[in-house]
């Protein structure tokens, strides 16, 4: 029987795997920024679209502008990786990486996309390695939007039940931080549960 119910064991395994994956990603970004960074412990929630909207409302300021980069991934597990940076953080990133005091909008956008690509590819590919599966990545895209527009109506059609994995990445010396949201599609929740079961079986064998 296929079920999307996650036990506390499933959530615990997924949280630990995300911790490992995010540790890898932090190391890659630290390499890029040549600075010490921290990634907060990921918070995992299973919810629906209303729950997601509520979650986003609490995580982001309603009227603040954000650089939002989305990258889709697909395969046995599929979903969307979203990286959100404030205007200020994005400008600091562009400033640091391009080594100029006033980076232009295109440079900032480019820097944010590249950072997101490294983050999402490292996190998701490490997760899939741990779960012995594979995914394909699609090219990311960035837009500048206010916090209340992070989730548009078109997304509502794609997600009924969602796993939200959220965390904060901080590079305090460069005043760069961002929030990560990973949204997994309905069928992915079932696949993830099966893959975690396999992992647990291997662990207990």
């Amino acid at each position: 029987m296929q079920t999307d119910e996650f036990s506390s064991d499933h959530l615990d395994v997924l949280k630990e795997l995300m911790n490992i994956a995010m540790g890898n990603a932090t190391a890659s970004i630290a390499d890029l920024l040549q600075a010490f960074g921290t990634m907060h412990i990921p918070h995992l929630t299973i919810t629906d679209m209303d729950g997601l909207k509520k979650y986003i409302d609490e995580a982001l300021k309603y009227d603040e502008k954000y650089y939002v980069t989305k990258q889709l991934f697909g395969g046995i597990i599929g979903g969307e990786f979203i990286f959100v940076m404030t205007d200020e953080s994005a400008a600091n990133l562009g400033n640091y990486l391009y080594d100029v005091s006033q980076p232009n909008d295109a440079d900032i956008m480019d820097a944010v996309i590249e950072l997101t690509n490294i983050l999402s590819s490292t996190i998701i590919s490490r997760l899939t390695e741990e779960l012995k599966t594979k995914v394909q990545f699609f090219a990311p895209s960035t837009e500048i939007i206010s916090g209340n527009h992070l989730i548009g109506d078109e997304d509502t059609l794609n997600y009924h039940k969602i796993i939200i994995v959220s965390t904060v990445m901080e590079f305090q010396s460069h005043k760069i931080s961002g929030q990560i949201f990973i949204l997994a599609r309905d069928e992915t929740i079932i696949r993830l549960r099966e893959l975690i079961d396999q992992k647990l079986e291997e662990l207990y064998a």
Partner: protein
Amino acid sequence: MKILVVDDSKLARLTLIKTLKEYEPSAEVYEAENGAIAVELFKSENPRVVFLDLTMPVMDGYEALKLIMQIDPHAQVVVVSADIQTHAQEQVLALGAKLMVPKPINSEKMVGILQQLVF
């Protein structure tokens, strides 16, 4: 020596070129922002080494690698990607890439890459 750097991110290209120039200051570098442009530049410039990203719009790195290897089966292609999945590595090596290196490229990784290529 001609080098082709392929990545849709300008930042990624700049970072790689800056690191490369520390060790190969005389390198003649060509840039492409997607696989389709890369294949055309490969045909016209015949570079010694190609640094190739995988996730790009228009034409991705897998397709570009396939076409480049058809043009020159001895091409030296180094895939540079944050996708660290074993299957991605197996796929690009099967397609003919010499190496696959995780992003971002730093000096240490560049030394390792250059030592493994034939000039």
